[in-house]
């Protein structure tokens, strides 16, 4: 009898739970689902940044899922003029690319890193470190400028020295252990004039060339690095010439026949280096002295070169076989090496390297510059200045 009861009870319990199980699928109160960042999977254009600071020189991560660029530090980033950062292609939070860099700031010193360039092989990143800039005015504000012929101001070109570094993306060690090459950017030669009774007076021999002017006026990182396909060498511009640095060497020799070359871009097959060649149409020279209350503060021999048209140019890495493709800035190779993307006339264009087709305007790139093509060729990242805004943001469009 008791056994029958227990069997019955067990059967009832099973029935009850069988009924309960379907309804027990109801779950906890769902947590709030924030819509802080929404991504439209069908979108063909993404605005990645909107910082009031300058966001420049985009490049693609090796996997093509993120865009690296140089940001002017804000908010959660180091408050530096140039920070190497990256964020997902479809948008997201900007994070520093490298570890253990730009973590401490010495008084009066800036850590200005720019032009991130991921290596085609391995997880390495080349970038430029901008050393302390020349002061625009070598003397105090109380000094009076006197020039022959007359001139209101003789601002010094900003770039003084650049350090090109290569660092592993996962590297945690000190920055000083990384391979690097240093070079002085042409533009200012400092010497001295000895005047009796006054002693040695500094003299700035200035040659203000277009490369310096682009940096001064537009913060154009004309010296951005471009890797050879084998990942052994890096091409870059010192503002006046192309140079090739074999990673690890102490020097980076100039490439012949590349005067006025800026914005180097090594082709995917390694046979060519594309660049923008600047030209000079005129020059003016002025001799100036800064007169301070206690005497002469500095002399400035000031030569300003007026920029002329620019030309999109190809050159072999050894400096041979120059080919001009027409006007264009900031070239970037397509992954197959068959085309170049560049800026001209306030937008991004595409041109076949073999010259078979006429240049093709890339839609939705008005106001864009500094293009970078994703490794799979599907997307184009570029910097764009919104109308009426002084600074650039990073955008991505899907290529047709």
């Amino acid at each position: 009898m008791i056994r029958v009861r227990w069997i019955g009870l067990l059967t009832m319990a099973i029935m009850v739970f069988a009924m309960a199980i379907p309804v027990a699928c109801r779950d906890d109160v769902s947590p709030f689902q924030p819509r802080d960042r929404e991504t439209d999977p069908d979108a063909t254009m993404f605005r990645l940044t909107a910082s009031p600071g300058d966001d420049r020189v985009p490049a693609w991560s090796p996997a093509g899922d993120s865009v690296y660029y140089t940001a002017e530090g804000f908010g959660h980033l180091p408050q530096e003029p140039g920070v190497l950062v990256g964020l997902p292609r479809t948008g997201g939070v900007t994070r520093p690319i490298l570890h253990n860099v730009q973590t401490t700031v010495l008084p009066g010193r800036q850590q200005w890193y720019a032009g991130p360039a991921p290596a085609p092989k391995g997880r390495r990143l080349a970038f430029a470190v901008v050393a302390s800039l020349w002061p625009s005015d070598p003397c105090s504000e109380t000094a009076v400028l006197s020039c022959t012929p007359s001139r209101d101001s003789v601002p010094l070109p900003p770039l003084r020295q650049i350090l090109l570094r290569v660092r592993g993306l996962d590297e945690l060690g000190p920055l000083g252990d990384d391979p690097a090459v240093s070079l002085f950017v042409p533009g200012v030669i400092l010497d001295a004039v000895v005047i009796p009774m006054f002693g040695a007076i500094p003299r700035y021999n200035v040659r203000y060339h277009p490369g310096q002017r682009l940096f001064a006026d537009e913060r154009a990182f004309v010296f951005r690095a471009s890797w050879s396909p084998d990942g052994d060498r890096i091409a870059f511009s010192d503002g006046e010439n192309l140079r090739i640095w074999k990673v690890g060497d102490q020097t980076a020799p100039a490439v012949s026949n590349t005067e006025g070359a800026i914005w180097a871009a090594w082709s995917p097959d390694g046979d060519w280096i594309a660049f923008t060649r600047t030209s000079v149409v005129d020059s003016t020279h002025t001799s100036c002295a800064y007169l301070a209350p206690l005497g002469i503060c500095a002399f400035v021999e000031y030569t300003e070169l007026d920029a002329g048209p620019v030309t999109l140019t190809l050159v072999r890495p050894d400096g041979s076989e120059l080919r001009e493709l027409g006007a264009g800035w900031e070239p970037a190779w397509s992954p197959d090496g068959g085309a170049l993307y560049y800026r001209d006339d306030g937008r991004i264009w595409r041109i076949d390297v073999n010259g078979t087709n006429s240049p093709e305007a890339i839609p939705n790139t008005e106001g864009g510059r500094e293009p970078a093509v994703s490794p799979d060729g599907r997307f184009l990242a570029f910097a764009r200045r919104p109308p009426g805004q002084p600074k650039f943001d990073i955008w991505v469009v899907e290529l047709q």
Partner: protein
Amino acid sequence: MLASRPDLSTDCVPLTARHEAFAHTTTGGYPDEPLICQTRKDRVVRDGPTSDGSVVSPRRAKPCGAVLAAALVLAAPVAGPTLDAQTTGRIVGRVREVGTHQPVGSADVRVEGLPLSTLTSDQGYFVLVGVPVGIHTLQIERLGLRAVRLEDVRVRAGRATEVVIDMETAPVQLEGVTAEVERAPLIEPAVSASHETVVGRELRELPVDRVEEAIELTTGVTDGHFRGGRVGQETYRIDGLDIKNQFSASTTGPLLEISPTALEEVDVITGGLGAESGDALSGVVSYSTRRGNPEHWEGRGSLTTDYWAPNDLFRGFTGLSLSAGGPVPFLGSGATLFADLLAQGMLDADPRARGLSCVRPGDADPALADAIRNLADDPATAHLYCPYSGPRLPYQRGDKVIGFLRLDRPLGVSTNLTLTVLRNRHQQELYTPEFKYNPTYQLGQRAKGTLVNLLLDWTHHRQGSAYHITARAAGLHLDRYLGVVDPWTFDARSRIAGFGFRDFRFLGERFVHRPVEEQLKSGRAVPGYQQPGGSTGSPFGPAAEGIFSTEGTPQIANWSRSDFIGGDLVGELLSARGHALRAGGSLRLYRAESYERTLAYLPGSAPNYARFYPATASAFVDASLAAADQVTIDFGVRLESFRSGLSLQRNRANVFAPTVTTGWNTELLPRIGVAVPVPGSEDRTMFRFNYTLVAQPPDFQFFLDTTIGDSLRVDIRRQGNPDLTFERGSAYELGLTHLLSPNVAIGGTAFLKELTNLVTGSLGFVGYAQNEFTTGDFGSVKGLELYARGRWPGLQFRAGYSLQSAKGVTSGALDTPEGPIVESRREFPLAFDRRHSADLTVLVGRAGGDVESPWSIGLTSSLRSGFPLDRLQAAGDVAGATTIPDRLPWTWVVDLRVARELGRPPLCDGCTWRLAADARNLLGRDNIVALRRDTGRLAPGGSDLTATAQEIPDDAEPIPIESPRYSAQADLNGDGLVTAAELRTVRFAAALDRADPSLFFGPARELRLGVEVAF
């Protein structure tokens, strides 16, 4: 004396008096009249031998008039000790001959199924002590008289049930007669205390999940406050054992819970506390547990859930209840076992009427209402208004399991051993609006308790008197943890319908249980804790910084453990004439441990930790005299002592300050109570008077430094004081009870309670550190309670109304006084001064005692006025116009439980089953239980919200889309940049959402369905 007692409770009613106000009895002084006894057709008397060896065959009770042998059960308590802490009750009575009313001496009176028997005295009186709480059958036999078998005699804990039995002369052996009764008395002439009793059957039919909900139906008890006393001024007893959470009762409650299905009855005493209960300032709740049926196994199981309900009524409740009891012969003859298990899973452990809500325009002043409408109507900002709402509160998941086991084993004819083990675990998340957008880390609490009680009961019966000695050894362990719930708890722990078999885990729990010296040496934050904050994750993005914590963890880690071992020894001497003497003593040795770290995420932050060994001891003598003319006089005295086991250095700033060594505190507490019938009322009107001096040790937690405990607030700190004295009180009570008719009784009680030496941490005294706990607070409660009881076949009701005024300087040990009264020590209405409260309980059908009815309906309703919102205003001290109400609005709740018997379920011949529907807050009333003190509304002031919004400066750095702080929901124009102007707009909305009034509302409407099987 007994003969003159009226029939106050029996179903046996004289025919001629059925329409009269009072039912005369057949006892002396009243005319003999034929009785009609209620017969219960479905109840079959089981086969069993009679005293003469014959077998009483299955039969039904016969009309008394037909059998001539009258068995009259008064079922009313006679004079005896006041409602004391016992696990057993008494049966007293008198046996007479039918017609002559001559006393029958040397009649054998025994309790069926139990080794309890006695002989009547020469005057026919008898007393049976040590009778387990519940319903019993008496057998009365004497040679030459026809045996009587009296069924359904209800025995209550610590009280006497009176019966008068008339036996018929039978020269030859005849089959005995059977009568039965099962009724609680409508009035209790010999009881001077104020109390209400809920029997186990009612508990199982009432719409309650916890016993506390049934206690709340007692007149004078609201929200855990007994007659206007602070929470913690009551004690809880299980089978006579005091299980008060002496460490933190005033802030965390009793912590130990028992399932309603494990109880035989609950007795709630609110006034006239006996000497044995003199350590409770405001009330005593006495639980009597069930014991196994000695004759056969019986049990029940039920499953109740609301998972079937539509979304608006779905709260995520599921409850499983199993209980069974019966004989365990292998443990000895007469041994019984009872086991009970209650498991509940809850997706919202504290559902509120509006669910997860937000401020509505109607909740706010006109200006804010307009602002809310603008926010809601503007397409650009509409998503910012009430962005997260629903019928259930998030992060209030929890579960509860209560297991109870009781083993009874007779050790001989007069000795019984009882072992009870109670273990429970209650754990749940604690919803906090600051963290409602934090998907990972929430505050939670887990309370575990284990009670082991070993009780030895020795009885000795003589003709007309009895001795009863109870020895008890017990151990109690309470373990409470408050901290951040480890995400594993809900990500990986197995749960069924909200119930998880394993304990909650808390971040860093192992670490905080390590020796404090180790913790301090490590200098670490509590592992897993993170500084709260976050910019995104809420509907308001960076605008909600500092308002919501979407990242990080709550800050507090807090645990306490409190154990005691103790022993009680109580002896009583009773006479069948109603006199009783009861005396005993008790000793408790505690081990208390407390840990609190309020900034647990901060490395180097130090916890407050203490381990100490307090003790309490008490002794009492209680006597009850049944004087002439139904006058009962109770008097007693109690000696109460405690020691903190701690020393203190009062001046913490001076390491050379002297150390004060604490010792024993002792109080002598007299008590007197009188119950007397009003002359001329024919004993239908009874008068009661009580005077009680009570004292209770303060919560042990006040010996220690503390901050506000169960809260995120960490700004209120108090210095502990191990040198605290008793909290004291005196209570006066006058009561009147009147039996309107055999079915209806009414009563009223006026009381005055003066409470002194209450613990406070907010009043300054010379010689004490600022914010040091002292016993310098005081207050008083006066009130009037009216009640009515009614009972008809298949219908019972209890109704009560309480009018009271509770005043005090502060409302609790951690509360601050109102206004500049630190100097004046003025009394204002307490924060829990519930002026009016009315409760109604209606039981219909089977719940009302009609066992033939297939329906069982239990309805409860509570109507209550609101607590003071502003104590000064409530006292009438504020002159001129005020913009806020002085009190909260009234609340009204109706709960209903309806069950339908379905007969025999398939596959189980010996079973019955039924379906039950359980509705809470049937009327769906919001029942506002809190308002903002600054505005007197549910909503904050619009200016406050604007001020919060203005915390965003004009030159605030815009937040670009690539910033981790960016939120599209705060970028109102979608330009990828959250500007200062946008931040201000959104922050206003965030502040409005933070003013989430969800917890300001009463219980939610719920509808559950259940199935119950019994065998």
